[in-house]
């Protein structure tokens, strides 16, 4: 593996939210890191904590949420030590976020130009004129024709695809080292989706930023990501390179997800699809066992005895399972798990 400089390192990130019913563990003990020029895919279903993780990194969590982390570093700077003001100075400058729905994340009463220039001027990168030049340059860069006239338009005057392009251009205003894209193409048509993904890919090659791509679409992750983190019920359940995750998944949840989707040319049309029975466990209260065991086809007694630790099997390859797929049929002992949890 080439050792490009690390942009983000997260260790032991947890987010707890106090609710009337008790403390909700939205995210538990998440480790992840991403290097310059690298794309990290975070996959999981709704409620698995992937969006909360990214909001935690950005410092955009709602006030009720309590974040804790052993390490949370951007470009070697400890984010936890920064004041709210200093965090705000990094947002939009060093790290930026692309949201799912550009219609709701762009301000409807300001022009595209206003919103783009504001970022540049606020972060003290230059004056209004320079900001306008940069905005126009970036709109061209993301493939918007007649960029100068688009700057004077309001978000509602642009189509969904153009809005998302403008959103991408906006994140690039201050040349950030980290971009987090949360479901960037889910609201778009398939043909537009491919274009936006191409754009992100090209821009990443050119600017060498680190990209975290959060999505539930396994096709998007497979085609875009270098490495993948699979999340379930607030925990990381498997990590590895995209090839490893898709060719040889080790966690039964990852396997289940892959079996659920019809694949043209591979799944038999009309044949029943695989499914993951049951529902996601409650995130209230402490974790005392494998979170997936109620839905797992191969759960056994030990799965209920103690929390299962994330275990690294090779550098960059880890899974949270006592009986990982594709390994010798000897289950990892629960006592081992107990020891690790303490």
């Amino acid at each position, binding site marked *: 593996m080439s050792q490009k400089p690390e942009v983000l390192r997260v260790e032991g990130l947890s987010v707890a939210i106090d609710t009337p019913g008790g403390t909700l563990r939205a995210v538990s003990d998440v480790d992840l890191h991403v290097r310059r020029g690298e794309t990290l895919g975070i996959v999981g279903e709704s409620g698995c904590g992937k969006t909360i993780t990214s909001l935690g990194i950005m410092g955009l969590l709602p006030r009720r949420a309590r974040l804790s982390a052993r390490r949370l570093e951007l470009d070697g700077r400890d984010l936890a030590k920064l004041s709210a003001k200093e965090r705000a100075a990094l947002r939009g400058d060093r790290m930026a976020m692309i949201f799912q729905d550009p219609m709701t994340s762009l301000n409807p009463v300001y022009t595209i130009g206003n919103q783009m220039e504001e970022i540049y001027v606020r972060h003290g990168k230059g004056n209004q004129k320079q900001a306008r030049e940069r905005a126009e340059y970036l709109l061209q860069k993301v493939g918007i024709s007649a960029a100068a006239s688009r700057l004077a338009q309001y978000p509602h005057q642009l*189509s*969904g695809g153009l809005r998302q392009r403008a959103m991408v251009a906006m994140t690039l205003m201050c040349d950030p080292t980290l971009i987090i894209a949360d479901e960037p193409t889910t609201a778009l048509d*398939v043909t537009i989706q491919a274009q936006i*993904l191409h754009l992100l*890919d090209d821009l990443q090659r050119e600017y060498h930023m680190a990209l975290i791509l959060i999505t*539930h679409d396994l096709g998007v992750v497979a085609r875009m990501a270098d490495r993948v983190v699979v999340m379930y019920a607030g925990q990381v359940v498997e990590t590895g390179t995209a090839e490893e995750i898709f060719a040889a998944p080790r966690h039964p949840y990852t396997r289940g997800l892959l079996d659920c*989707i*019809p*694949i043209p040319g591979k799944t038999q049309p009309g044949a029943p699809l695989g499914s993951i029975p049951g529902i996601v466990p409650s995130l209230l209260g402490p974790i005392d066992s494998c979170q997936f065991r109620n839905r797992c086809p191969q759960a056994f007694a030990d799965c209920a005895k103690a929390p299962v630790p994330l275990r690294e099997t090779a550098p960059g390859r880890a899974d949270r399972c006592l009986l990982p797929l594709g390994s010798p049929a000897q289950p990892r002992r629960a006592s081992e798990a107990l020891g690790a949890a303490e």
Partner: protein
Amino acid sequence: MNEAAVKSDTVLECRGVGRMFAIGAGMFATSKTLRAVDDVDLTLKRGEVLAIVGESGCGKTTLSRMMLGLLLPTSGEIFFAGQPIQSIGRNEIARRVQPVFQDPYSSLNPRKTLAQIIALPLDVHNIGTREERRARVEELMELVGLPRRLIYAYPSQLSGGQRQRIAIARALAMSPEIVICDEPTSALDVSVQAQILNLLQELRRELNLTFVIVTHNLAVVEHMADRVAVMYLGRIIESGPTAQIFSAPRHPYTQTLLDSVLTPDPTRGLPEFALGPGFPNPLDPPPGCAFHPRCPKVMPQCKTQRPATTRDGARMVECHLYQTAAQ
């Protein structure tokens, strides 16, 4: 025309169906005409699954609303089992065709219990006694895999997949011939999507239902549909048996759509295709073939002449490339 054959086989037929809307008529503004659906021919055979695919704004939802009898066509005719739709009463149409909508969060009344939601069609049509309706509701819940204990639950107490099951149960309450599903799984998680698709397949086999699935998810289309109709700017530009369309698409637009499906295969990068500018303004459609500004195989005649329909067995395509080949 052989009336008996039409009755037994074709449940719904669209002949030259079009729908126009007047847009932007104000005190001083003259209205513009939006041709949402334009000259669509479509037959739906009993027991088949027809998929209508296309990008947003292509008219697929307008077409499905006309099939539901919620909108009348401004040109052409729709027939149910050989009878023109205008001659059939509103209630009669609702008995034969039922919808399942995309978003089970907004398509169910949050203040009604499951029993009330599922029984609503029976109440509207005044079918059966209270006890009979109750029995029917329980039967339907079992059919779609909802546990009986949820009968007095409210939609807010249920998951997305369970809500979509309610919507399906409600659609089946009147034992319709046709169920029109508009993006039935787009709002659902991957694992839940598989459960709902499996349920639709089972129901189709058990009840011999005819499905129209309106979607942009081509993987779902290949898995579920017998026939596909691809729409672009209000027109069906290609249709035919699913297996044939997927193995050998003809229209450049269909080819592009199929290329843009991202299978979960990390050894392959992003698909390479240049589709040019975005979807055209439907108020001001391009002359000639509506797809020509984005078409990678555009020819001079595409810019001026609308391509005629070329038929070949069960397939049809509307493209100049095949017109010259056929002539």
